[in-house]
């Protein structure tokens, strides 16, 4: 199934993109995807990574669905 990845702040430098599509196995979870992303892009292993599915913070073992949008980003600094 296809999912959409989004990256923000310095993660756009690490990945060279603001977003991309990725084919992942059916039944993949958020932690499976995070592991995959850590393998795909150098430098991710040293980073604190926050993530959200379809604009909501979720836990580590949440199942993904076709078309989900998963955002990866560093700790926030608004305010």
């Amino acid at each position: 199934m296809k999912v959409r990845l989004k990256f923000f702040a310095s993660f756009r430098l690490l990945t060279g993109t603001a977003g991309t599509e990725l084919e992942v196995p059916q039944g993949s979870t958020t932690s499976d995807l995070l592991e995959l992303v850590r393998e795909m892009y150098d430098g991710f292993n040293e980073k604190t990574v926050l993530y959200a599915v379809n604009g909501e913070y979720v836990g580590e073992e949440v199942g993904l669905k076709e078309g989900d949008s998963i955002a990866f980003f560093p700790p926030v600094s608004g305010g």
Partner: protein
Amino acid sequence: MIRVTREDFSVDEVVASIRSGGMGAIVTFLGTVRNSSQGRDVDRIEIQVYEEMAVKQLQAIREDAITNFGVEDVAIVHRYGSLGVSDNIMMIAVGASHRPEAFEACRYVLETIKEKVPLWKKEFTPEGDYWIEGEEYERTE
């Protein structure tokens, strides 16, 4: 009022958006761009936002503040894009019957934004450009 915008805002307009007869106190917080950070001069900043998520998070924070602190209304405006020194970054206005809950709720809203809402500041300094990530600074090559 929840607003995430490139445009500047009027402090009076934000206050007016929540003002009502039941309020005896309106506490406001205005965040602005400081000209120094970590011992470096700051020329300007850029703020990046994951807008769809930020709006949802700000709405949830506003509702939590009203429910948990018993305040009457909360307005939050946060800017993104390129901002100069002294420019407005964000504003919180909290209206309540009495001041204690208004101060407490305003603090709660601010600290929760800093912890949860997907916005990131990048500082432009003579020594280079830095993304701020929580408490960390990440130099941009």
